[in-house]
């Protein structure tokens, strides 16, 4: 692992926070696949909340505030304890593809050469490139700009040239971060306190104790700290902008690089700068801001909602219009950062760059934003890079799954193909599929609304969805996998009993129901019906089956409540999978497909979909185009004399090694 600054691994350069809708789902999925993020959050969070509690289980999500230093330090310890991993501090200047390298058995040759700024060279079979905002990064505050990827770090300038030389086309995006302030200059009495959860919440199944540096008293400046409960937590504090704040911003728009044309990259719409909000929503006379502690022992606070690239004096002036911040001092100035990315139509769904065999891309280089999005991609890119380097190993003895989408993935892995998670199985899959089928022209953030099967993709069932795959990849221990499978069996068994068993409106049953806070029965019903009542809670229905543990009850209750909707979504998934399983060859020449409309031809050539399902999601490709494509593929099959019929299975993945061997 080469990184710019070894003290900054897993740095959270923006918000000291992990999770939220869809992002929290990602963290759970990463955990279910054996990834590290959930564990690291659980060791280092200083506040945890469950969002969307009233809006249904499918969209509920955990959100944590983490201690910035502890989060990075804990992750560094994980890296240091990883066998066979060397950590090096280095600035990568170039990546080259060496030609004339023959394969070595099943494995590809180490054909990639990474050069650092000090002229050290590393040969590699596969490289995972995660440039963050460093690729040709440029930081802008007011009228000032300087080359940097993050405040205090040099950008990777030469690397951008190297990537272009490899044939990759680069685009430019922008993001930003708010000022940090000194908590000792905040009047907390004029803020609204946002406490953490009273009930225990963790990203991992059983939770983890806090890191030693989080033990003991927090920085004494934060009022209403929650100490002595299930976990020591710090609150966040809400303040609001006002007419004066807005006046300061309006008076200085001529110095705002966003509006003077000094910044050209496209910023994310879901994370606009404060000046942008005030211009675009001129009728709103106040916006909320959240003051978030950056750590357990630091006085620095993050001003969530105040992303800005206004000049330093304006940033200070606008903060000081807010009553709680009348005497505030900034510790770090907010800034915008522009950086290069590789528009992901050039990337395969394995996250390998199509033009550079063995080069895998993850995170902001693919046009995304967010730690969780980056982590999800990092996991998939890492797995596929490792499998690439091993010559796409086959493995006949993988676990099986009764869930069709999961079974497809396991079959692909067993057959030595790449790891691709279907949209119907994971948010990670939704994200990567979105990336490789659409034009990404603003930093991409995952949202629950992007997942069409989101009732299946809940954070509560990430383990049930993905544990077989995590185990198959060797990332999840047999014990962890066994625990998840035992839970699956217990849930199914309990649901089976509840579907079979009738409750009759006997005085005894009704008295018991009323005692549990449930409406009495007027006639006999299946027990499962009682679970579907809006008033049914795990605590209320638990006495129905006293032997079932709470974690299983949670699943039983959710699955019973959503049964009708889930059945519908499962049917949709089954239908959709048939198109997903129809493989489209990577080298298909769309110019030779008779009958495609010009727009479809152009879009398909641009995105190179791997399956008919993916082709159908490309904007501008119509069902009629899909019919034409289907007929063309069938014609190709027959011309080749292939016996693969209509239900042919997708054969994902480059068979580089076996072809060359």
């Amino acid at each position: 692992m080469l990184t710019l600054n070894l003290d900054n691994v897993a740095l959270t350069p923006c918000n000291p926070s992990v999770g939220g809708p869809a992002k929290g789902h990602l963290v759970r999925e990463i955990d279910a696949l054996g990834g590290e993020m959930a564990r690291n959050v659980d060791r280092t969070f200083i506040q945890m909340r469950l969002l969307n509690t009233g809006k249904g289980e499918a969209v509920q999500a955990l959100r944590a505030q983490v201690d910035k230093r502890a989060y990075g330090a804990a992750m560094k310890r994980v890296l240091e304890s990883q066998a066979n991993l060397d950590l090096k501090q280095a600035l990568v200047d170039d990546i080259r593809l060496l030609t004339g390298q023959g394969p070595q058995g099943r494995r590809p040759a180490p054909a990639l050469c990474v050069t650092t700024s000090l002229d050290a060279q590393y040969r590699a079979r596969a490289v995972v490139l995660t440039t963050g905002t460093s690729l040709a990064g440029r930081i802008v505050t007011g009228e000032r700009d300087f080359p940097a990827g993050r405040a205090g770090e040099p950008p990777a300038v030469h690397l951008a040239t190297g990537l272009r030389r490899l044939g990759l086309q680069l685009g430019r995006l922008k993001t930003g971060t708010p000022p940090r302030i000194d908590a000792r200059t905040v009047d907390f009495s004029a803020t609204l306190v946002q406490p953490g959860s009273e009930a225990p919440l963790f990203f991992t199944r059983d939770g983890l104790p806090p890191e030693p540096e989080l033990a003991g008293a927090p920085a004494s400046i934060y009022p209403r700290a929650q100490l002595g409960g299930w976990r020591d937590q710090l609150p966040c504090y809400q303040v609001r902008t006002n007419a004066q704040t807005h006046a300061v911003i309006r008076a200085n728009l001529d110095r705002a690089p966003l509006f003077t044309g000094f910044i050209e990259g496209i910023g994310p719409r879901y994370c606009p700068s404060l000046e942008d909000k005030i211009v675009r929503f001129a009728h709103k006379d106040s916006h909320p801001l959240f003051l978030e502690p950056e750590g357990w022992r630091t006085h620095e606070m993050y001003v969530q909602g105040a992303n800005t690239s206004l000049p330093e004096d304006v940033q200070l002036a606008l903060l000081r219009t807010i009553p709680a911040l009348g005497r505030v001092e900034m510790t770090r100035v907010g800034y915008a950062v522009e950086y290069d990315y590789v528009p992901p139509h050039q990337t395969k769904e394995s996250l390998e760059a199509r033009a550079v065999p063995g080069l895998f891309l993850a995170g902001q280089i693919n046009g995304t934003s967010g730690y969780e999005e980056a982590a999800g991609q990092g996991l998939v890119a890492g797995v596929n890079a490792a499998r690439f380097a091993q010559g796409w190993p086959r493995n006949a003895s993988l676990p099986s799954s009764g869930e069709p989408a999961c079974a497809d993935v396991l079959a692909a892995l067993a057959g030595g193909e790449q790891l691709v998670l279907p949209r119907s199985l994971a948010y990670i899959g939704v994200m990567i599929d979105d990336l490789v089928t659409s034009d990404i022209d603003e930093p991409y953030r995952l949202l629950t609304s992007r997942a069409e099967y989101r009732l299946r993709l809940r954070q509560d069932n990430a383990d049930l969805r993905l544990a077989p795959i995590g185990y198959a990849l060797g990332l999840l221990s047999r014990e962890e996998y066994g625990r998840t499978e035992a839970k699956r069996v217990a849930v199914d068994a309990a649901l089976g009993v509840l579907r079979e068993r009738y409750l009759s409106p006997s005085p005894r049953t009704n008295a018991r129901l009323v005692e549990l806070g449930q409406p009495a029965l007027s006639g006999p019903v299946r027990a499962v019906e009682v679970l579907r009542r809006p008033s049914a809670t795990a605590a209320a229905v638990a006495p129905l089956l006293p032997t079932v543990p709470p974690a299983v009850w949670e699943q039983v209750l959710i699955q019973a409540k959503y049964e009708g909707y889930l059945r519908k979504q499962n049917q949709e998934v089954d239908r959709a999978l048939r198109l997903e399983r129809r493989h489209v060859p990577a080298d298909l020449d769309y110019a030779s497909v008779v009958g495609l409309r010009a727009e479809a031809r152009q879009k398909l050539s641009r995105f190179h979909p791997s399956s008919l399902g993916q082709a159908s999601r490309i904007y501008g490709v119509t069902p009629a185009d899909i019919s034409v494509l289907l007929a063309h593929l069938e014609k190709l099959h027959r011309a080749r004399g292939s016996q693969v019929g209509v239900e042919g299975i997708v054969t994902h993945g480059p068979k580089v090694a076996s072809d060359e061997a």
Partner: protein
Amino acid sequence: MLDDTVAAISTPIGEGGIGIVRLSGPRALAIAGELFRRRRGLTMAPALRSHRLYHGWICDPQSGEPLDEVLLAYMRGPGTYTREDVVEIDCHGGPLPLRRVLELCLRLGARLAEPGELTLRAFLNGRLDLAQAESVLDVVRARTETGLRLAVEQLGGRLSSAIRDLRRQVLEVLAYLTATIDFVEDEIPPQDVAGPLEMTLARVDELLASADAGIVYRQGLQVAIVGRPNVGKSSLLNALLRQERAIVTPIPGTTRDTLAETLNLRGIPVVLVDTAGIRESDQLVERLGVERSRRATAAADLVLFVLAGDEPLTGYDREVAALLADKPAVLVLNKADLPTAISAAEAAALVPGRPLVRTAATGGEGLAELEEAIVQAVFAGRAAPSAEPLVSNPRHKQALWRAREHLAAAREAYAAGLPVDCATIDLSAAVNALGEITGESATEDLLDTIFNQFCIGK
């Protein structure tokens, strides 16, 4: 897409003795079982044996209402055209019974076949050989392009703009609910959900009711009357209507600036579309008029290009003539009863190769010749009723049905206090169904709506 059951009308459009609705796919027999009765009043479907012809009635399974008396044949796959289970229903000819039977099949779960899909299935299931594959592709392509043209035309129409409005309303409700989920810590001002849902549902019902009329209107030969203002287009229309005793359905104009009337011209159902009608004294009228003529011409199977015989040709006349390109057309030199200012040669040179008829619409002269010219155009194969509208309109109606079901489910989920995530699933499905008509994509539109409506980014 090849594992579901599709339905289509397999005979040409128009008045005929019989017409055939064909079902193909694994559920063909099951659907037939639901809608076919051997005797009036029976509630049970007969057990059907393969390759036999049965007499009976197609009944709406909900109301029991008989729709048509039919002959029905079930053919078990693979010994069929598509190698799938096939059911053929011989209905009475005429667009209405056929359409109602087709719609019933769709309501029972069949999907409307894509253009050329039955042939495509036959090919994919190994029924056709490789040589035939090329022609299948040609068929799909040709039909697709026509379909596309029609879709584009309909986008200018009243139904499409109504559906766009409707879709936007649903999208706004969905955007609100989604914003509260995805941007939970932002300030999303509370909005009414039940009210707008009720309104959109009522509107979908209205559209479904009017879709019937709309489909009737689309049946038959589309004839557009174009020409510059005051050449007598309206009087020509009125004269043709008066001439024909058998007016089938008088339908008010489909757009504010056109008037459509259906008549039966010697057995050919004809829809006359008059582009005249509004504010001819207006300054903007020329530009508007040309634009209107362009649209009417594009949608028409046959164009009646009207010139006033008593006035010299104008630039406007030439502009309209230029629109005709290779469109089947009849040149009508009207006001033949007044002193002539245009020679026949001059007029004919404007649109070469098209028949010319002199009329005096107010006095009824030349109308018989005009009718003859229209009929000739049809029989000479120069103009034919479009086959696609019948296909494309039930498609729209099917999409509207689905939108209605999803909206109703969303309303129920919301009213029952089910979590918001359920309602958003139904609403997305409704937006998608409506988007199939207008060809708009859901996710991006949803995000655009959210970001335009709410200040996101706490």
